[in-house]
């Protein structure tokens, strides 16, 4: 994991350094002398290895440098203001995608070849093929312009976390009631009651929080749905395929033979195996959602990191570009690690040495 980050930093650094021109060259009204002073201040005139070494040294202390475009702001500051909207949007989108995808995929697999199955799979294939930058504007066209239900831009949405604790308590309660009714299954194949409760609660908390957030912030609905659509579709397809594979296996047949109810069989036994492809997809999905936020933030004028990144790349704002790439890289690598751990937890056959 540190290796990946190191390669990422080096590669990005090399790319930016290899590019012709300086970040101050494009600006007009910068006299030659001032430009040289600026380059001196940012240390751009030093040999590359010194710059690289200095950057690594600062990075180790968590200092990402100063933006060359907004000269009075550090990269850390910019990231601190840009991250909350992006995180909120991305988190809401991935929770929505999971909620829709898991439910649609499971029902599709349990009721294979039903009308619901065909309908949801067609929608899912369509959802995967239509790029976010088409869905976004089209959703705006339909819901904001034609029907006037939702606001066009989300620039002013409120970043609030107050919804989360309320949702958490509510979801815990619901999860407790649900798991109480599902009896413990055969040893070795079942989740412990506490674990099952925790998992379900976590998902429900997230869903409830996302929903409360959306109700309180209608401006967030369109961007979140736009971002969630392709991943929800993909998750639905993966979930359906995974469940179909598991449903035919012996341990599920055993569970049925014991006389367990269909709900118990699906929720307690099949789900755990069927969800595996979805879990391994979560890593790429988070990457995709980060990338997608570049587009969605642009469409809906959200002042987040994605917009900042595109602008900084266009402005050649060296340190800002580096900072955002490193942050995103770190997020992805961490997430992939978490996914690996969860995977091992769900599927005991997999062991990491």
């Amino acid at each position: 994991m540190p290796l990946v980050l190191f390669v990422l930093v080096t590669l990005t650094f090399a790319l930016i350094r290899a590019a012709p021109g300086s970040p101050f060259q494009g600006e007009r009204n910068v006299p030659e002398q001032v430009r040289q002073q600026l380059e001196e201040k940012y240390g751009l005139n030093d040999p590359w290895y010194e710059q690289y070494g200095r950057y690594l040294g600062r990075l180790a202390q968590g200092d990402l440098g100063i933006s060359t475009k907004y000269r009075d702001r550090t990269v850390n500051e910019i990231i601190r203001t840009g991250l909350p909207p992006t995180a909120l949007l991305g988190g809401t989108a991935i929770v929505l995608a999971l909620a829709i995808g898991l439910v649609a995929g499971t029902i599709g697999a349990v009721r294979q070849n039903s009308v619901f199955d065909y309908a949801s799979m067609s929608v899912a294939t369509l959802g995967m093929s239509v790029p976010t930058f088409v869905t976004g504007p089209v959703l705006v066209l339909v819901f904001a312009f034609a029907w006037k239900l939702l606001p066009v831009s989300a620039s002013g949405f409120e970043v609030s976390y107050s919804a989360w604790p309320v949702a958490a308590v509510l979801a815990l309660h619901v999860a407790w009631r649900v798991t109480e009714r599902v009896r413990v299954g055969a040893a070795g194949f079942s989740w412990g009651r506490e674990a099952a409760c925790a998992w379900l609660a976590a998902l429900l908390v997230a869903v409830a929080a996302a929903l409360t957030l959306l109700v309180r912030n209608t401006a967030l609905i369109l961007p979140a749905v736009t971002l969630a659509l392709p991943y929800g579709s993909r998750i639905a397809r993966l979930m359906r395929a995974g469940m179909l594979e598991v449903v035919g296996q012996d341990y599920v047949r055993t569970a049925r033979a014991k006389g367990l109810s269909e709900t118990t069989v699906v929720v307690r036994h099949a789900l755990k195996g069927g969800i595996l492809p979805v879990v391994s997809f979560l890593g790429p999905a988070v990457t995709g959602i980060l990338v997608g936020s570049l587009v969605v933030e642009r469409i809906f004028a959200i002042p987040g990191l994605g917009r900042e990144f595109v602008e900084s790349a266009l402005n050649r704002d060296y340190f800002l570009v580096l900072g955002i790439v490193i942050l995103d890289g770190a997020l992805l690598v961490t997430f992939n690690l978490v996914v690996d751990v969860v995977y091992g937890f769900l599927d005991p056959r997999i062991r990491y040495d």
Partner: protein
Amino acid sequence: MDRARDPADEKAEAAADDAHRASDGPWRQAWRQLRRNRMAMAGLVVVLVVGLSAMFAASVAPFDPRISESWETSLPPGARHLDLVNEIVLQKGSPRERDVPPRVLAAMQDGHDHVLTMEVLTEEVKQLRLTMDGAKVVQIQGDRAARLPKVELGEDDFLRAKEDGARIAARVLEPGAELPPGSPRKDGRWVLLAEWVRRAPDARRKVEAGFGYGAISRVLVDGAPHEGELRIRAEHVRDIRLDGERLEHVHLLGTDLNGYDVFSRIVYGGRISLLVGLVATLVSLTIGVVWGAVAAYAGGRVDVVMMRTVDVLYALPYIFLVIVLMTAFERSLIMLFVALGLVQWLTPARIVRGQALSLRRREFVEAAVTLGTRPAAILFRHIVPNTLGIVVVFTTLTIPAVVMEESFLAFIGLTVKFQGEPIDSWGALVESGRNALGVNGERWWMLVFPGAVMSLTLFSLNFLGDGLRDALDPRQKGRS
């Protein structure tokens, strides 16, 4: 068939079919499989149609996407429009190319006599002086400061501010009325000098031009000969006929803000998008196949190092690097091929390595080794060709991914430049369509059509890819 089918009959047929199938090569079998998959076949048809029309864009697109018709901007889909040029100049003798509509020019060359008839609006401009209170009209004065009680505009009439030529959207002007939004406005009491452009229907002139042998022989205005040159602006022409036949064309999908034909732009845009998709996929395939096959064949430490590299690169947020690459360097087409190709080669490297590992232990490879064939020859004659099935599937599934990535880059403003000129791929069209929507989305066609064509193509490619995978690699069937 009127005879009820006997189940035994069917079984025999199926058996014969199976036997027949077994005698076919793997490619024919796959083709058979694919033909049975209706969605995949539909996808294939769509992909072929889109691909061919992009290939022969010049003959498919009705208009040149580089020629804008500034007098017909933002026409809705299906709008019929007269064949015109910016300014028609009629004068005895050979006209210059840009002075008459192309179809007239074409007709001139055939050596026969033709007659061009036009109906042209004449404009009468009246000066108005509006005394305003904010956006409210207090007093209207016409010529010689005469007060007018009310001004009602005819269908072709319009009002414009004298100062900057801005249109004033009012249809009726009377003291006490407010000017509609979009009109010039100031706070407090002020004076707005306006022009009332009247285009009375009875003020239409009939212009006739006769020509033959490549030259205009006579110009008549309302039946009387006109000497010297006659200039007619496109926006004043209400009717134009060549030998009695109306000269008009249809913009199937409308025109955009700059008067370019949307359909033509989509066709030409597809050329860029699909070209990028195809070439970048081939680049990534070449790297990936060679990398994977070499790693598998070499084995041992080389294999470990090569595949570790792939693992590390896999974990990078690649699209960010592509963006950095595209902004840092010149955004040429080749750069784009390289950037996108470099992103995609990791997956085929892994797949091919897996395949090659199992192929390496097969008898025919061992036979080749025994015969003393060089390793390179074994790799490219024996191992790589046998991974082709998977490579084909990968290609059809990667093209849409690359097309999407390229359009994504174009959408965030990183359009490719070719010889210094930006080229509009589908992504760029969608982006400009989004910007052109207007306050209420009234110009929807500039967004919806490019988006729909693009989505349909990606949808079809995905279905085709899925179908091919089912046909070529039945073990994977049903996976997503």
